[in-house]
């Protein structure tokens, strides 16, 4: 484990920490942002799942004797980001409609049905 990996691990920790902080607030928009931010933090972890590598591009007849890079984490993170964006859009729309219908963005006011 080299220094860069430690740095990225710490970054993931900070981002996920921020997301947890956001999710613990009572404001609807912040909760949504927190849940999306957690996905982004973990995307970064996914990016590092191949480890820190130095090497040639993963092309078979590339003129280099250095070891090749692993391209898989990059494709994984790309897919995850696109999916995350779709979910983000849907959550924002859902949150906005909920705000419109209930007239409040306080999570505490959005609890159960039967307890009203």
């Amino acid at each position, binding site marked *: 484990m080299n220094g860069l990996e430690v740095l990225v691990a710490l970054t993931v920790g900070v981002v996920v920490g921020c997301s947890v902080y956001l999710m613990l607030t009572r404001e609807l928009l912040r909760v949504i942002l927190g849940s999306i931010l957690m996905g982004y933090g*973990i995307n970064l972890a*996914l990016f590092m799942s191949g*480890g820190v590598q130095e090497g040639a591009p993963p092309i078979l*007849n*590339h*003129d280099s004797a250095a070891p090749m890079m692993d391209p898989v984490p990059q494709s994984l993170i790309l897919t995850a980001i696109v999916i995350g964006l779709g*979910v983000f859009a*849907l959550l924002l729309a859902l949150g906005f409609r*909920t705000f419109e219908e*209930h007239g409040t963005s306080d999570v505490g006011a959005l609890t159960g049905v039967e307890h009203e």
Partner: protein
Amino acid sequence: MSNLVVAPIVLPLVTGAALIFSRRLTVQRSVSLVAALAGVAVSARLTARVWTEGVQTFYAANLPAPFGISLVADLTSAAFVTATAVAALAVLLFSVYSLERRLEEQYYYPAFQFLLVGVNGSFLTGDIFNLFVFFELMLMASYVLVALGGRPAQLRETLKYALINNVASAFFLLGVAGLYRTYGTLNMADLAMRIQLSDSGGWLTVIAVLFLVVFGVKAAMVPLHVWLPESYSAGPTPVVAFFGGVLSKVGIYCLLRTFTLLFVEDPAFTHEQLLLPLALVTMVAGIVGAVAKTDFKRILAYDVVSQIGYMLWGIALYTPLAVAGTVIFVVHQIIVKPVLFLCAGAAERVTGTTNLKRMGGLLTTHGSLAALFLAAAFSLVGVPPFSGFFGKVTLVRAAVAAERYATAAVALAVSLGTLYAMIKIFRLGFWGEVFGDRRVNKDSREFRGMIAAIAILVGASLAMGLGAEAVFTYAAAAADQLLDGQAYIQAVLGDFDPAAYALAPGAAPRPLTGPAGMAPQGDALSVPAESEPAGVPAPSGDQGNGPSAPAEAVPGSGVRGDGPAGGDPREEPGAAAPVEPAGR
């Protein structure tokens, strides 16, 4: 290699995409019903083929596993896909007759088809990252469907459902990252092979717990079930019927797959110490909730949680008989749970409420509905000759055989609780004086349509119960397949030889576990001894070959397209040569 494997995914995908372009309800209804019928036919054919010819695989673009996207249909996934298709047909038929026009017009049918894509994809994928993608597809469609109509309560509950599942999805990705970091692959068969060949030094257990949390949220395992009861009682009834039957079972299927194929390194901890207590708590907590409620849909929603406990129990016992019982039980639940919700939906259409205190005497005015509900309730509780009995009796037999008498006692006690909850529904809603509104006549076309949809599923449950012998033979074979990881690996990877690609465990040093942790320890694979680079860094041939044989490399990889699908890459020397390590 069989294109039939991809059919249950492509069919709803094409249907759903086409339906978006038509706003005419008659077209939407008839096309989705036809597609659902075709889905039943296709999946039944797939099941028949898996039964006669063994595990079926599909490699996208003919790129062999573990490099390409692979779909795998074994007995378990084929059975689940078929049961899902039957449930989808009945639910769609019910929707045609019962759903409000306003909801139908809001792209209900396309969203339903996309949901089917996600569900069938999750059942059939052979790659853990694609499982994530199909999961997300399924969840996106399910958010749309639960919120359909946009009543305030629906929006609020959907938001909670979406937020909780979104966090679970983030954990899913973390688990995927952990697996890739530790084993360098995401294909489930390849993962299973590497897991067998190496000792992760405890990392695998950490990842297993992460996935237990993820799939536990999706399957509504207590204490991760909190999103389920309210969102299931808020959504439109046909939607909720399908969710109660199928969606939570996708989580169970994933647990069944991963905890029999991948996370088997330390069953004493993951299965016995974690899953078993959680299963019992899930059973008990679910039924306590069901007994306490007086709302038709809420009782059923809590009962979904309780039934999840039985399936977890089967996985936790981890014996062939228990796994067979789980397979029967999941199929039984996919069929029976929608019936109960559909009965609730029909009762709601008739009386205008789901509150059992404000309805009564449905037996007098709508006898056929009462009869079908009673049959489904018997099936759920486990009264022969319905399907529920045989699922439960197999699980209990497995528990007794494994000498887990206390767990069997808990399960039987929870059965009594289920019986009580069902009797409560019947006593309040169906028996007694005629009470509450009657908005739909029992001879109307609408009511007959709803009854027909319910009757399909009750018939399926009865058929499963009457053909218990055949069902059990099938489930036992499915359980053997699930527990025999070697057969799955063989079916998916064929003669794939990791050493030929310099991919053998330990070839690439991975800092988290270290080379020592990855040392191969068995001869489970047909890896020739001299090509097994135990704990040695990747041979330089891996990248050295690139420049040295550029002319061969490109055509060679093209030839490989039809090689491994046929089974033996060695028959084509040109295929394996360019990437073979120099050491061989």
